[in-house]
Every structure is written in structure tokens, then in C-alpha cells.
């Protein structure tokens, strides 16, 4: 049984000006210990998809339909009280901005104690503090800093503390939403190394949510490319890098600079992402697509798979056989 299974998930934001389908018909699964990258630009629905896995989609968002199964249990059907015991214990979430996720008037130790004692009421505060110290040291922070306040730490250290809180209860799945976006590259590298190291030690699965396809390609086994709320492509990193299928993925890969290449020529994707209140009819990408065909403007493509390892939402790939025979590629 996969650790996480998402099936035809739809998440809407019901605003006064209309409904935004922030996540549309998302399906994928994740096994124990795997790393998955959710890549997409702003407004692609990557954070909403992540938040719906712990049922924390902010107002006015609602999970309209679908299933989110964690070890077979559909968490969308659980009462809130049971959901609370899943957050932190089974699934942990690391937010982008550690300063807003840590309580500025609480010492670091208190954050750990609260977390541990909420989930394990029988643990004494002293034991919880002891555990917190061990965790801090494994993050490369001196145990004596446990009595410091969040503002006394640098941005990188705060993000380490967030990671520490996430792994405290030894969850099966950790989700990190843009964990390094506010950080400099050297700190970013250290944080990602730390996350990778801990993941290996504890055998957790990791979902890395980022707009930066470079770090996802570098760090994840599998990648989901999101565009305007839809999964456009889903494949292993190697496969996606070697042979991207979707014209959008191809365009993305041609727009990220790689310092290892000399005389690289980047090319741009024309146009800009759609207004989510009134997305284009048919495929969401056709107004920007170099291969757009008649049917793309009328019909919406489905996510089709090839041998359960590479999925794409595009009419260029033959529907019936599910094979990746490209049609009209040149035309």
C-alpha cells in the first residue's frame, strides 16, 4: 500500500468574484521513503495541493471532492480531532517563512515541549526538553540555545528549527513548502543537505514544494509539474530531465540556466499564465503552446500514463494506447 494516495482531488477557492479551481483532478501516489517534488510557478496550486494533504487549505478554500489516503485511511472523512493527531505525527509540514511559523514570544524549547506533550500527554516536560536538545544538536545547533527566542536565530537557523519540529514525532511524510526560498544559496544548500540526511536516517518520505525546478531536479526522485491547478506531467526526475513530454515542461527546462553548461541558450515561453478566474477553454496552456492544435482549444486533455511511470496531460501523446507516440510534433 502506498503511503500517500491522492485520487481526483479538487480544491476550490470560492471568492465573491467567482470560483477558482486551484487544484483540479489531481491524482498521484507516494511510497514510503520516496522524495517527490511539486514544481510550479506562482498560482499553479502547488501550495494548495500540499496544504490539502494535511487539510489546512485556508479560507475561502474548500476541498470540493476527491480522496486523500494516508496508509489507506481517507483523511478527508476523519473528524477534526483525529486529523490533529495525524498532523505532526504522520505528516509534518514545513512552511516557507519560519519567522511567522515560530511563536516570537516563546522560547525554542517551549515549541518542542508543546508539540511533544500535545501528542504524547504522558511525557514529562523535562523528558520533552531532553529530546528537544538531542534534536537541536542533530541539526547543528548548540543544545544550550534551547532557551533562546526565535528572533535570536538567523534565517537559516530558524529554518533548521522548523525542520527539527517537523521530525520530532518521527512522521512518515514531511512536506516542505519553499523551505529555502528566503535563504541564500550557501544556506539553502546546507538546509537541503540536512533535510536529505535526516530523511535517510529516519526513512521519511519527502514532498518538496518549490518554484525552483533546479533544486527539485537535484533533490527529488519524482517530479510533478503543475500548471494552473492541473498536473501537467508526472515522472521520475531522470525521465523528466532526459525526455520531458509536455511542451510546458520542455519550455521550463529551456528557461533555467545551468552553470555547468557553457554557451547555453535559454528560450522563453511566450505569454503569461492564465487568470485563474477565467482560464482558457480546452487545455490551460494552449495560448502559450508552440504545438497547439485545433482540439486543444476545444477539449480538455486528460492525464494519461505510460507504464505507470510517466504521465502527461497533453493531446500530443496518443490517448488510446497510452503510449508516448508523439503526434504532429513538427506541425
Amino acid at each position, binding site marked *: 500500500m502506498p503511503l500517500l494516495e491522492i485520487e481526483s482531488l479538487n480544491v476550490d477557492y470560492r471568492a465573491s468574484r467567482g470560483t477558482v479551481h486551484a487544484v483540479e483532478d489531481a491524482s498521484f501516489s507516494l511510497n514510503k521513503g520516496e522524495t517527490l517534488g511539486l514544481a510550479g510557478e506562482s498560482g499553479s496550486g502547488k501550495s494548495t495541493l500540499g496544504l490539502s494533504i494535511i487539510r489546512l487549505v485556508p479560507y475561502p478554500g474548500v476541498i470540493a471532492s476527491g480522496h486523500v489516503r494516508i496508509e489507506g485511511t481517507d483523511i478527508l472523512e476523519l473528524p477534526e480531532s483525529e486529523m490533529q493527531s495525524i498532523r505532526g505525527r504522520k505528516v509534518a509540514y514545513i512552511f516557507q517563512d519560519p519567522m511567522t511559523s515560530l511563536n516570537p514570544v516563546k522560547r525554542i524549547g517551549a515549541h518542542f515541549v508543546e508539540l511533544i506533550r500535545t501528542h504524547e500527554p504522558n511525557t514529562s516536560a523535562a523528558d520533552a526538553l531532553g529530546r528537544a536538545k538531542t534534536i537541536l544538536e542533530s541539526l547543528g545547533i548548540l543544545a544550550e540555545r534551547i532557551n533562546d527566542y526565535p528572533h535570536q536565530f538567523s534565517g537559516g537557523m530558524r529554518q533548521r528549527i522548523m525542520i527539527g519540529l517537523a521530525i520530532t514525532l518521527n512522521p512518515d511524510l514531511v512536506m516542505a513548502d519553499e523551505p529555502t526560498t528566503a535563504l541564500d544559496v550557501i544556506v539553502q*544548500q546546507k538546509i537541503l543537505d540536512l533535510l536529505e540526511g535526516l530523511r535517510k536516517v529516519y526513512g521519511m518520505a519527502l514532498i518538496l514544494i518549490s518554484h525552483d525546478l*533546479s533544486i527539485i531536479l*537535484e533533490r527529488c526522485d519524482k517530479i510533478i509539474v503543475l500548471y494552473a491547478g492541473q498536473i501537467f506531467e508526472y515522472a521520475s526526475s531522470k525521465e523528466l530531465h532526459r525526455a520531458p513530454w509536455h511542451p510546458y515542461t520542455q519550455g521550463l527546462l529551456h528557461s533555467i540556466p545551468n552553470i555547468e553548461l557553457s554557451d547555453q541558450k535559454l528560450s522563453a515561453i511566450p505569454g503569461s499564465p492564465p487568470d485563474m478566474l477565467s482560464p482558457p477553454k480546452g487545455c490551460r496552456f494552449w495560448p502559450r503552446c508552440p504545438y497547439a492544435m485545433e482540439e486543444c482549444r476545444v477539449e480538455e486533455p486528460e492525464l494519461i500514463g505510460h507504464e505507470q511511470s510517466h504521465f502527461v496531460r497533453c493531446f500530443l501523446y496518443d490517448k488510446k494506447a497510452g503510449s508516448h507516440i508523439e503526434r504532429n510534433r513538427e506541425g
Partner: protein
Amino acid sequence: MSEIVKVENLRKYFPVQKSFLEQFFARKTTYVKAVDGVSFSIRKKEIFTLAGESGCGKTTTGRLIVRLLKPTSGKILLNGLDITGAEGEELRLLRRKMQIIFQDPYASLNPRMKIGYAIGHPLVIHGLAEGEEKNKRVLEVLDKVGLTPPEQLINLYPHQLSGGQRQRAAMARSIILNPELIIADEPVSMIDVSLRTAIIDLMLDFRKELGLTYLFITHDLAVAKYISDRIGIMYLGRIIEISNKERLFLNPLHPYTQALLSAIPIPDPDKKREAVDLKGEVPSAISIPAGCRFHPRCPRGMYVCVKEDPELIEIEKDHFVACHLY
């Protein structure tokens, strides 16, 4: 030499704000040494990049050159002319020659000004064109930056544009005075990847068509490598290495540059790199370490590094480094 800008030993110290009592008791003011002895020159029609981590002083350097800030000491020459102390009318005329594009296109366009008005505004301020003539030039630059159809766009407000379009509008505003130099401060770091390349290409096109020179300021070395001719790496208010980009990436000399380059993610799942591990974090610009400012973190530090501040010296042609190892 066809140098358009020359900066000599530029410094900018910001006094640290103190409470009344602290002011009363403290003997001297402490300073944030944002820029602490920076020298470089930018050649005509080149793209010179200042790169470094947050707080290294790259943005302050850019603002000093357009004279949005007054330097504490040092010299800024524009076309051989000393503009360090320029004020009033002289400064206003200088600004025709150099323009700046900011990181956040949401903040740099007045939300209550229509795009056409905002872009034509510099012409009015400098008394260069009005009425029909002004409108004609606004439509021209809008077309140049790819905001089409221009006739429709002039009547929109910034909130009606996407991030990428806003940055194009900011670029249109910066070129309408036909400047010689554009300081581009992180112009693409808030723009989504799929739109980024188009903005970069626009900058490259303008260099060719309009003969522009750029000072490009960025934290993203992958973008820097793509766009620049020469790159200066900054650390704690000082340039520690300058070179043309090929040599810098092929043969980085300063241990900090080596660490910085090794931390850049490579968008390729088959490549794994050896990272250079740096101790600790960047110290505060209030108390810059004595000797070489990088020595507390340097994996190759020596005794001399603690004592002496290394100077920027030329190691090979056009490749300068400030490090006692060389």
C-alpha cells in the same frame, strides 16, 4: 579605455539607530559598513554583474552609483567626470544618463498612475517632450519592450498587468530618456521562470540596439553566468573577486567564490557535486572581522589572514582576487 563608470574605494556607512539613553551613554556611534572599500569599473556596452549573498552591499553599491545615496567616502566617475558630490541640477541632468530598475515591479510603479502616464513621466520631469510628442515616444517604448498593443496598455493601471508585464513597463520607463547606463537590481528574481527569460532577452536586445551598458545586481549566479560579461563577487561590503564570467566559473580563485559556486543547484538529476563546506554564517556588517573579512569562515585560512586585509590583485589577465593564497 572606454570605461563608462569607475568606482574608487567607495564606502557607505549607515549609523545604527539608538535609543535616547544609549545615545547618552555611548561614546561613539556604531556603523553598519554596508559598502566598505569597493573599486571597479564598467566598460561601455558591457554587462557587469555584482553578485553576492543578502547583506553583501551589492544593492547599496548600485544605489550609490545612481546617487540615490550619498557615499561616505570614495569616488564615482561617470565618463571620466567626478559625480561623487553632484547635487541639484547637476544630479538631475546626470539621471538622464543613468536609470535604475528595481526588483519589485509591484512597488516601483505608482498604483494610481496609468501605465502610459508613468512611462511618460520622466520626459515631463526632464522637460524633454509633452503632448503629442510625449505620447508618440511612450507608444514607441511600449512597443520596444513588447507590451502590445501599446494603445490599449497606456490606459491600464499597474494592478491590471501581470508581474512580467509590470517589469517590462519598468524597463520601458527606464529607457525612455535614452540613458547610457542602467542599473538593474534583481530585475528578474520576483518573476516566474517561464517569463524570466523573456525579460533577460529584452535586456540583451537593448544592449545591442540602444548601446546600453548594464550594472546587473543579483544573488542568482546561474542567471549572472547567463547574462554577464564580467562578474564581481561581493562579501561583507567588499569585492573579493572580479573576472570575466568564463574564467570565474572555470577557475574560481577565492575560497568564498568556490563555496558560492559549489552551492548553486544544478538542474540535472544525474550530476552530483562536491560542496565546499563553509563554517558558520555571514557575520554582521557592524563588526567586520579584522584582517581578511572572510577568515573566520575560510576553510584555507592562514595566520596572515587574521592580521592583514588582502588587496584586490590581478592574478591572470582581467582576473582579480583579494586573497592571501595568491
